[in-house]
């Protein structure tokens, strides 16, 4: 009976409000509760913790916390862009700014907080901002675009994050802090000093002990700020990040109990002074404390969902750990537990390394046996381990400082086995070690992404991910499961290992590799992968007998299969340059074989709807006219796009077209773990979009800039600059090395971008290998590429010249007929495959050949 359901209204759809709704759904509340929420912001809940990434590479859509369809599918009513303006506690009714009135059985305030703007003269001048919402960031971005200097008022956590954002906008950035050091809540004097030095070395000016007295503007435009010590600072914009204040205005106006300095007072059940009203997240005040982090808010959401559903047995809120680890302007900072050694008798141990710019302090108990807290600046790798030692009161080693030397050696590091099951690993999402182990065991999880998805651990601030990973590895080891990167069930090796074996053993066929290193018959995963490795190593004709059965249908018929079983034909058009004569041939061939014709997204022409038996005939014509295979069907080099370059373009500084053609001809037919795309632009205007390619080249006055590992497609990624101002010989040398290095070491179906993202050591390492030849393999890599270049053949030319191969292209092995099931209709003057409905009509006139056997 729907009417017997109670109504829960959640005011505020921020991180914590949304988490509450998710928990309610997950715990089966929909049978008993109507869920309604009001969302003041113009968008549903998003990840405020990672807000700054909006300035780097995230869009508003990336930041959303709401699974698609979450509200609709679960019947939750959400009022986006509307806020509650009144609570009538007698009538148990709320009213929104848009005039919506709703009666509630229970009400939850999850209204968060607002940034505190100090009462300084001129603090509302245009050019002043706060840093809390996506809208705030949009405003900062827009104004920043026309500013040169930006100042952040506040040197705390958020202030420094904000400074980073301003810096990333290209502003000359300053931080003004009222206290004598940065991050006064988390850091002691030395820690603050080390951080300040680090941050200044990154080009952000830090001004401590500065009290701002006035913000000065001229002609309505902000120009400077004035300090109490009579000094001043010129600036175009100011962002206030001087702390937060709970949004308790609703609670205030309906008479709920508030703290002296604001905040809605709650008890262990997260109830306010009105038991029908709860408060959670940053608006709530527990034992005189506001919790300005997301994890405690999530704990409160957990408590409330439990209170509403489980009643008396429910969990209670008993305060939360405020330990934090952050990366501020690329500098790791962590502070946990009793960071200022306030516990009686507590001792401090510290290591300061002014060269590396690190400061690490441990606070230990009087007897030196327990860890009570600490501060880490510059290197916080030990944070996860230290936090666990502290929270689980585990005994310290005799020399606690050994915990502070790099943990990767692991000598002093804590082994996961010693942690109790109750240890909280992910504080953002309150996931314990026991829960992780149980999920790993019961759901048979073997990889980190799945574990994160199933437990939510590591999906908040991400700080616990290394620990989660260690636990996974340790559990799998215990279960005897090897975390494997095997190619498939037939080869107990990774692609990289097999590649090595294949080259070292000079193995030239799949069967030989299988006999030596594998089992069974192979499958659609290992066969094409090995086919590609053989091709890139020995460059044999792919339709030769031992190889033909390895190829995906596209490679085995040298064309792209379509949904109706016909193929598309894409001849190579190097650099996109084509003579009128050749264009005419393409038109004639298309006409003759009735092929649907389209210009592709990569500067060439695609002819669709070729039957398998027509392919050799079509290619006969194309090869005669001087075309060759475009390898659009292969995990191979596709195109090297080009812009018109200096020969015609008034801005071009180099001849990009000639280079593109040369590169396309050099690398044509090169098979690789995934497809390879390239482009060459004649100047920095970048009309060829080289920065979106696996390798891209941009002309400069002095030569060529080489970009690598870019990608369009499903997850676009900008290419990174590998080397600048190269002459052509060096460019080709680097490219040869880069491509073969990628081919040898990437996983199957891994584009260069994904490969790069996983490459340990990142860009520096890649530069060392490619440019400095740190592995001493450059000659070998170049030789392998030269072998490829020397042994290249056009697969289509070879095919049409080999009658036995041509025979493979008949539709029937025992009859000359074409596939009778194909059906087309006309659209915009060309043919296209008939839809299912159109087929029914067409089929009525055809015979039974087209119907499948049942």
């Amino acid at each position, binding site marked *: 009976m729907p009417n017997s359901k109670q109504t829960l209204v959640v005011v505020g759809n921020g991180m914590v409000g949304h988490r509450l709704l998710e928990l309610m759904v997950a715990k089966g509340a929909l049978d008993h509760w109507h869920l309604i929420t009001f969302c003041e912001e113009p968008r549903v809940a998003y990840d405020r913790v990672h807000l700054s990434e909006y300035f780097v590479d995230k869009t508003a859509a990336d930041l959303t916390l709401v699974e698609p369809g979450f509200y609709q599918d679960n019947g939750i009513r959400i009022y986006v862009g509307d806020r509650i303006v009144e609570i009538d506690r007698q009538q148990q009714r709320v009213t929104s700014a848009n005039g919506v009135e709703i009666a509630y059985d229970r009400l939850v305030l999850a209204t968060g907080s607002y940034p505190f703007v100090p009462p300084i003269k001129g603090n509302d001048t245009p050019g002043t901002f706060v840093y809390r919402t996506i809208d705030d960031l949009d405003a900062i971005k827009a104004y920043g675009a026309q500013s040169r200097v930006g100042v952040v008022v506040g040197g705390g956590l958020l202030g420094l994050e904000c400074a980073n954002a301003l810096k990333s906008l290209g502003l000359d950035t300053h931080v003004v802090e009222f206290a004598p050091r940065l991050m006064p809540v988390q850091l002691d004097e030395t820690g603050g000093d080390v951080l300040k030095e680090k941050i200044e070395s990154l080009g952000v000016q830090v001004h401590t002990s500065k009290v701002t007295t006035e913000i000065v503007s001229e002609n309505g435009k902000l120009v400077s700020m004035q300090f109490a010590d009579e000094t001043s600072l010129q600036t175009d914009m100011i962002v206030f990040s001087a702390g937060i204040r709970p949004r308790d205005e609703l609670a205030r106006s309906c008479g709920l109990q508030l703290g002296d300095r604001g905040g809605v007072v709650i008890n262990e059940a997260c109830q306010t002074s009105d038991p029908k009203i709860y408060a959670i997240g940053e608006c709530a005040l527990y034992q005189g404390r506001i919790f300005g982090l997301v994890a405690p808010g999530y704990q409160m959401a957990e408590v409330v969902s439990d209170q509403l559903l489980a009643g008396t047995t429910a969990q209670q809120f008993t305060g939360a750990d405020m330990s934090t680890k952050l990366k501020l302007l690329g500098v790791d900072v962590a502070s946990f537990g009793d960071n200022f050694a306030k516990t009686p008798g507590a001792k401090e141990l510290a290591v300061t390394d002014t060269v590396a710019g690190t400061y690490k302090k441990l606070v230990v108990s009087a007897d030196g046996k327990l860890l009570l807290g600490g501060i880490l600046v510059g290197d916080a790798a030990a944070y996860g381990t230290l936090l666990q030692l502290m929270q689980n009161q585990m005994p310290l080693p005799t020399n606690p400082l050994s915990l502070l030397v790099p943990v990767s050696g692991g000598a002093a590091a804590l082994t996961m086995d010693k942690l109790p099951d109750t240890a909280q690993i992910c504080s953002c999402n309150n996931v314990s070690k026991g829960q992780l182990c149980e999920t790993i065991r019961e759901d048979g999880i073997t990889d980190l992404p799945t574990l994160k998805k199933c437990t939510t651990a590591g999906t908040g601030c991400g700080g616990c991910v290394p620990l989660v990973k260690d636990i996974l590895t340790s559990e799998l080891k215990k279960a005897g499961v090897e975390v494997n990167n095997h190619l498939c069930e037939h080869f107990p090796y990774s692609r990289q290992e097999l590649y090595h074996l294949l080259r070292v053993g000079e193995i030239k066929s799949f069967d030989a590799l299988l006999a030596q290193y594998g089992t069974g018959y192979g499958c659609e995963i290992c066969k094409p992968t090995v086919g590609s490795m053989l091709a890139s190593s020995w460059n044999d004709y792919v339709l030769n007998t031992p190889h033909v*059965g390895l190829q995906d249908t596209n490679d085995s018929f040298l064309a792209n299969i379509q949904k109706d079983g016909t193929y598309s034909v894409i001849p190579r058009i190097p650099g996109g340059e084509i003579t009128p004569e050749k264009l005419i041939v393409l038109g004639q061939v298309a006409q003759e074989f009735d092929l649907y014709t389209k210009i592709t997204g990569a500067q060439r022409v695609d002819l669709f709807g070729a039957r398998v038996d027509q392919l050799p005939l079509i290619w006969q014509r194309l090869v005669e006219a001087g075309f060759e295979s475009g390898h659009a069907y292969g995990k191979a080099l596709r195109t090297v796009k080009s812009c018109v370059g200096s020969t015609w373009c008034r801005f071009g500084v180099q001849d990009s077209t000639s280079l593109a053609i040369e590169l396309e001809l050099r690398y044509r037919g090169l098979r690789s773990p995934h497809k390879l795309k390239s482009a060459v632009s004649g100047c920095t205007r970048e009309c060829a979009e080289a920065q979106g390619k696996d390798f891209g080249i941009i002309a400069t006055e002095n030569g060529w800039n080489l970009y690598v590992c870019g990608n369009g497609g499903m997850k676009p990624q900008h290419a990174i600059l590998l080397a600048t101002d190269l002459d052509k010989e060096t460019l080709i040398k680097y490219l040869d090395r880069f491509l073969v290095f990628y081919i040898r070491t990437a996983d199957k179906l891994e584009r260069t971008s994904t490969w790069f993202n996983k490459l340990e050591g990142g860009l520096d390492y890649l530069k060392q290998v490619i440019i400095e030849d740190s592995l001493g393999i450059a000659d070998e890599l170049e030789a392998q590429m030269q072998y490829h270049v020397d042994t290249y053949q056009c697969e289509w030319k070879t095919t049409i010249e080999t009658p036995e191969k041509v025979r493979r292209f008949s539709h029937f092995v025992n009859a000359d007929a074409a596939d009778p099931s194909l059906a087309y209709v006309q659209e915009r003057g060309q043919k296209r495959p008939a839809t299912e409905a159109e087929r029914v009509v067409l089929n009525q006139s055809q015979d039974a*050949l087209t119907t499948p056997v*049942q």
Partner: protein
Amino acid sequence: MVQSTTTTDSIDWVTICALDAIAPNTGVNALVGTEQVAIFRIGPTDEVYATGNFDPFSNAFVMSRGILGDRQGVLKVASPIYKQNFDLKTGVCLDDETVSLPVYSVRVVNDQVQIGTSCQMRH
């Protein structure tokens, strides 16, 4: 009533092609009566199998162009279009048991590949 289980004796064998016409570890498509039949040659001992050529997932006649192999010892062919796997012996789809391909009797006699057709199938 027509007998539903055919014995070898009641099968008519139609010769399709020489075994050599099928490259090792690949398939070909044959016209058998009015039907399209995919014939596969697999493994070091040249085992042969035959299934319908119609791919029920893409509705195209393409099964003969799939990659051959095994999953945990079960010989199979992967559809070249959306990669579903089918047991070569039973025709059952290994990724969705509710779907299957028809299977045909097939043998090699004097290096010639033959498909068995029952009277029922030829009408």
